[in-house]
């Protein structure tokens, strides 16, 4: 981490592998190609983007439709994995 100065400070790269390492155990949103969102805690994932999540909430058109204690999502359906944005008054 320290003292690696080969990249310009503004443009530090973060590869998909780096991203995946950084989000384990974090709150994430997984969006599927169908438009359905899953919010929960990322347990782990693999090279196919198969995902295991805990405390998963399923949102269809922004509306909570279902809750799962654990959930496995098949990677081919995944559009993106997002960190949870803490923008709108989320942190009290």
């Amino acid at each position, binding site marked *: 981490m320290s003292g690696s100065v080969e990249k310009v400070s503004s443009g530090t790269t973060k590869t998909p592998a780096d991203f995946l390492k950084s989000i384990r155990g974090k709150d994430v949103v997984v969006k*599927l190609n*169908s438009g359905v969102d*899953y919010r929960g805690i990322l*347990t*782990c*994932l*693999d090279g196919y983007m*198969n*995902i*295991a999540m805990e405390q*998963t909430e399923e949102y269809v058109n922004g509306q909570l439709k279902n809750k*799962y*204690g*654990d*959930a*496995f*999502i*098949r990677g*081919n*359906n995944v559009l993106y994995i997002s960190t949870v944005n803490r923008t709108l008054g989320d942190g009290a």
Partner: protein
Amino acid sequence: MSGEEEATVREPLDLIRLSLDERIHVKLRSDRELRGKLHAFDQHLNMILGDVEEVITTVEIDDETYEEIVRMTKRTIQFLFVRGDGVILVAPPLRST
């Protein structure tokens, strides 16, 4: 209560492995859902399920009122094979803590 090493999920498929012989919920493409006992699976998420309840959800628009009519068609199937490429999500039963 269960042994800790048994319950560790190192890769996503471990979650499925832990659900063998348990009743699971499977979400499939084209608004199909299955609930049944997981007998076997492979890395493609092909699965063998027993005592399955299948629910198909269809939404129709009423010609006159333009209201959405949601229909749930249920049926039970004793034993079936699910092809993995149709699988969206697999949810094991709630793990007791």
